[in-house]
């Protein structure tokens, strides 16, 4: 399993060097290193409690790693607060979705356009226009004026996605955007993510739907008990006996 990041070519957007997060005695993420380049999609899989969301929280700024370094476009960002990371170009979705319930879909996405990278759009009409475009892009064009809390599960996922995209991110962290969707809806979201390729965005996609991960990812990283147990080409990683064991347990002989 060789890393592709070493060879010259696409610019590295985010790099983690041995990041560790402990909660009192419990080690949630243990000395994990990885990097994602422009236009690259890194799929992250692992059983429940493997530390995937904790890792996203460290990248987005909710947690500070106990050890290790996070470099965003070459700058150390370990202590940079969340909102400033958003200005730098880091956007995320939440596994437990966090739409602004009292706002319409358009207003939700407008917040992303108003405050995202470089402090976002300063004028309301321009931000609203940008929000409208991303709602169209994610297939919510017909629900623009609906209150966010009236949207169903799949539409809420789209809304989360549109909010993050409206921020104009350089790095997009997608935490289980497909959980709870039916196969048709999963395919739609996969298509959306593929459409984002070629815009210079680095993407980290946490997902349990293995089929989606296989078709999306340029590389797949596997976390188990907070440790990285595999990182590389999707087909090879998903065939790795250690990965299968982590997910399904050991084959009895």
């Amino acid at each position, binding site marked *: 399993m060789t890393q592709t990041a070493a060879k010259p070519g696409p610019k590295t957007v985010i790099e983690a060097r041995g990041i560790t997060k402990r909660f009192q005695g419990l080690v949630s993420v243990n000395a994990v290193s990885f990097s994602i380049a422009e236009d690259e999609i890194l799929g992250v899989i692992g059983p429940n409690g493997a530390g995937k969301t904790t890792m996203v929280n460290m990248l987005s700024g909710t947690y500070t790693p106990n050890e290790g370094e996070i470099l965003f476009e070459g700058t150390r960002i370990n202590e940079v*607060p969340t909102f400033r990371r*958003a200005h730098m170009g880091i*956007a*995320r979705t939440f596994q437990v979705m966090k739409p*602004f319930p009292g706002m319409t879909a358009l207003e939700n996405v407008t*917040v992303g356009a*108003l*405050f*995202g990278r470089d402090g976002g759009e300063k004028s309301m009409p321009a931000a609203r226009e940008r929000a409208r475009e991303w709602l169209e892009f994610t297939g919510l064009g017909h629900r623009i004026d609906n209150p966010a809390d009236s949207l169903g599960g799949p539409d809420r996922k789209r809304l989360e996605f549109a909010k993050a995209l409206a921020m104009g991110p350089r790095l997009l962290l997608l935490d289980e955007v497909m959980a709870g969707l039916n196969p048709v809806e999963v395919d739609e979201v996969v298509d959306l993510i593929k459409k984002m390729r070629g815009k210079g965005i680095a993407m980290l996609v946490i997902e349990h739907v293995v089929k989606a991960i296989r078709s999306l990812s340029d590389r797949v990283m596997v976390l188990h008990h907070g440790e990285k147990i595999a990182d590389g080409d999707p087909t090879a990683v998903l065939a790795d006996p250690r990965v299968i064991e982590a997910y399904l347990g050991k084959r009895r002989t």
Partner: protein
Amino acid sequence: MNRPLLIVSLLVAAGLATLPWLGSDTMIQFGINALLLATLAQSWNILGGFTGYVSFGNSVFYGLGTYGTAIAMTNYNLPFGVGLAIGAVVAMIAALLVGLPILRLRGPYFAIATLGLNGAMMAIFSNLPIAGSNIGLVLPLTRNDAMFYELALGLLVACSLTVLWISRARFGMGLIAVREDEDAAGSMGVNATRYKVAALVMASFFTAIAGGIHAYWSTFVDPASAFDSTLNVRMVISVVFGGPGTVLGPVIGSFILSTVYEVLASQISTAAALLFGVVIVLAVIFMPKGLADILRSRRNLTWRYFIRNIRENRL
């Protein structure tokens, strides 16, 4: 708030401006009190309504406004306008100093932290010789209720226009995002602490000016009336009754409550406070989102609306 509603509101304000020529003295005095309370409610709305942070410290800014004006006018013989400005600046500095540490606290912890401020201020001013210690200060007498009325009305209009701007601006979107979900707002790039502090400072400005006007009008300031925590409770009630985070809700809410209280007090003086309490309890049970929400959903306003509110908010 749409354009027709804005025009109607400005026309109503213009109509109210004629009251000193038409109304009786009692009417004008009631008007001054009602307008000042509406201004206080509208200022409280800037932080409380838009970010959802319940402050019990706004009466501190009111007190600083009254004392700023009173000290400037009695001890230094400065004109009223200068006194107002001094009170406002002191209150804004206090809002900044208080806000920076405690607006990092979330939700109920913020409310608890603000609760102590009022008592602390009362204790400080009771022992300040320059503020007349616990005796208070007597301001120069000016019998010109019409002027105070117009000042109070002008302040309310200015404060409401500020809230109207907030409701349409990037700043307001940031505040509302903080109210709806502070974590999500932060991860989208909203500097929550800075936005909340800015909202508190804006609120403190209008609150202090209202305090200064009241001080000069009533010609007397003492610690108990300047730092009156029930005044802060009245601000909260008016905003919750009218509709938090709306432009007209706090104004209409406080007008209605002032009127109800005045009528109750003149009809049945002893039971007025009790009945007033009953009105508020019923309002919170049946319309927790305020009058503004009722007006907005008036098309399908049936008894179901009230039943739904009860169902949604019971434990």
